[in-house]
């Protein structure tokens, strides 16, 4: 099969009622451009969200509409060529973080970022994917983590954490209530997160465990756009959770991991889970509401909070972090557009795993930089390891004086010591 046919078939495979409604609804008003940081920061019209799905729309037109079929039958259809796929690969991957702002503003109600996620399936099928993402996906499939973090590395980190906190980290405890997942970045760069979990769960008396066979929460299959690979990664977590007979699985402070396991997971594997998935911030807020978290002292510094896209727009986790911060500080200075319409850090959706996109990522970080500078503070709290990494790199690139902290670990600092 030619690349053209493979891509065309893969696009068509994604079509359903909503796709058809979306493609019929666009009148090219271009308002989505105002919502996309790749467009606003580069002023390059090729990053207009609706343009990113042009090839998929072409496939829909040719294969699913009466006029399109007629034109195709007389040879007037514009084919989807290898060159087209190579050209669009750069906007679909490098120029989109799947942040979802476009989907929130479209007057026609088109879920543009949802379409881009689906369009990526055809880029995978026709082998038009960025090298960095391809390698990360390969590592995830073969080694269990996009960064190549394996069990011995985790166990070594856990040893350090146990030493630092004086608490033991439960691994493979059958029948625990909660199975905590981690992202590789947390294991390697931010193990403080694991220590914070240990402290908080000890404090609130939560029965929890890690699983030696399923600790990686990120899903490279979702980022690159391969439902088959994504399903396999989800299956690993499901089998780990089922083996340990846990009631809940905790998605870590990582935006896309939450999307992967909470929203896409059951649909990817084609059956509902036997456990309940909860984001760490949802769980902490639940513990707070139940009176199981007691804090002491307060953090006097002024700071701002970066809402990870996958948590606010694609997960509805908006008030939880604010409730939690309210327990130990009144220093929160919100950024303009904070909450559901917060601007992306520029590193989500696989961009941070794609070295080819690095220059572009730095350019679009300007949006976040302006938002942060508007608050006038130089401490930022967030709840996503990938956002954290992207903001750290951006701050360094622009020589910003910025201190970046994860919310869970900050909260753990203010816990009342257990009696």
């Amino acid at each position: 099969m030619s690349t053209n046919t493979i891509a065309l078939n893969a696009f068509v495979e994604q079509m359903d009622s909503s796709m058809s409604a979306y493609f019929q609804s666009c009148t090219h008003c271009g308002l989505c451009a105002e919502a996309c940081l790749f467009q606003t920061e580069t002023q390059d019209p090729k990053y207009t969200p609706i343009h990113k799905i042009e090839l998929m729309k072409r496939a829909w037109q040719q294969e699913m509409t009466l006029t399109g079929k007629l034109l195709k039958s007389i040879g007037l259809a514009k084919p989807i060529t290898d060159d087209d796929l190579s050209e669009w690969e750069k906007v679909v991957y490098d120029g989109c973080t799947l942040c979802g702002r476009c989907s929130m503003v479209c007057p026609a109600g088109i879920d543009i970022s949802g379409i881009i996620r689906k369009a990526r399936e055809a880029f995978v099928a026709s082998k038009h994917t960025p090298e960095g993402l391809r390698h990360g996906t390969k590592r995830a499939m073969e080694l269990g983590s996009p960064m190549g973090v394996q069990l011995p590395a985790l166990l070594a980190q856990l040893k350090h954490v146990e030493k630092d906190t004086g608490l033991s980290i439960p691994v493979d405890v059958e029948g625990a209530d909660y199975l905590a997942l981690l992202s590789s970045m947390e294991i390697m760069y931010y193990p403080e997160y694991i220590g914070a979990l240990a402290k908080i769960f000890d404090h609130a008396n939560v029965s929890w465990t890690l699983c030696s066979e399923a600790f990686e929460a990120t899903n490279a299959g979702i980022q690159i756009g391969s439902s088959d690979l994504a399903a396999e990664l989800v299956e690993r977590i499901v089998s780990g959770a089922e083996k340990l007979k846990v009631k809940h699985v905790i998605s870590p402070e990582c935006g896309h991991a939450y999307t992967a396991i909470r929203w896409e997971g059951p649909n990817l594997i084609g059956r509902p889970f036997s456990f309940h998935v909860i984001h760490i911030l949802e769980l902490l807020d639940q513990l707070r509401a139940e009176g199981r978290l007691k804090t002491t002292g307060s953090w006097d510094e002024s700071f701002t909070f970066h809402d990870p896209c996958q948590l606010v727009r694609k997960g509805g986790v908006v008030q939880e972090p604010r409730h939690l911060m309210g327990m130990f500080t009144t220093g929160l200075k919100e950024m303009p557009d904070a909450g559901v319409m917060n601007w992306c850090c520029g590193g989500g959706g696989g961009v941070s795993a794609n070295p080819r996109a690095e220059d572009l990522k730095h350019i679009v970080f300007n949006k976040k930089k302006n938002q942060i500078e508007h608050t006038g503070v130089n401490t930022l709290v967030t709840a996503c390891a990938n956002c954290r990494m992207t903001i750290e790199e951006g701050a360094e690139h622009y020589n910003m004086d910025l201190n970046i902290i994860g919310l869970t670990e900050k909260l753990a600092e203010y816990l009342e010591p257990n009696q």
Partner: protein
Amino acid sequence: MNIDSITLLNWARGSGFEWALAIFIFGTLYRVLTLLMLGRKRNLAPAKSAETSAGVRTVFRRFAPAKGLFSKAPLLHIAGITFHLGFFLILFFYTPHIEALKTVLGFSWPALPNSVITATTVVTMIAMITLLIYRITDPVRRFISDGHDYFIWVISFLPLLTGYLAFNHALLPYTLMLALHILSVELLMVLLPFTRLGHFIAIFFARFYSGSDIGRKGVSS
């Protein structure tokens, strides 16, 4: 010439209109049915909040500009909203239009004074011309536009222009202009379901689907 115009006008009012109406209705049904028949997979992830009501809310909410977006493109919003509202006012509240619709629907409603309709027509045409200029001059709009966008602009503009000229007895003899006006409306009706103008019905589905998908995650959109 006169007799030809009258023949043309009679055809436009008679079989022309019937054909156009039939194509419009069946075309729209075809689009809606093919859309619905594609179906949607059942979502297996437990919803955080009710999706259907969220979908319905989004259908209505998206008539208004998204928060913070108006100031980013005020001209586009004002011209876009004016054109749509103007078009509906003229279509549904001009006396002869109500009479024509009565023959199809069997009932009628009060009309707006002709002076209001004339003024609305001028404003609506200005809004459309503004949108066209914006499409041609703004880098984003120009980049994403194709021939289809300009084509549907022309077929949407013709009924306004011919209607205005006929009402004012300008340019061509009244009978001929009126026939051309009706024919332009029929062209619009025939093309509505088969072009991007089909958004008139598709946006309700699109808004509902995205609104419920986003809504089930606990986010209102």
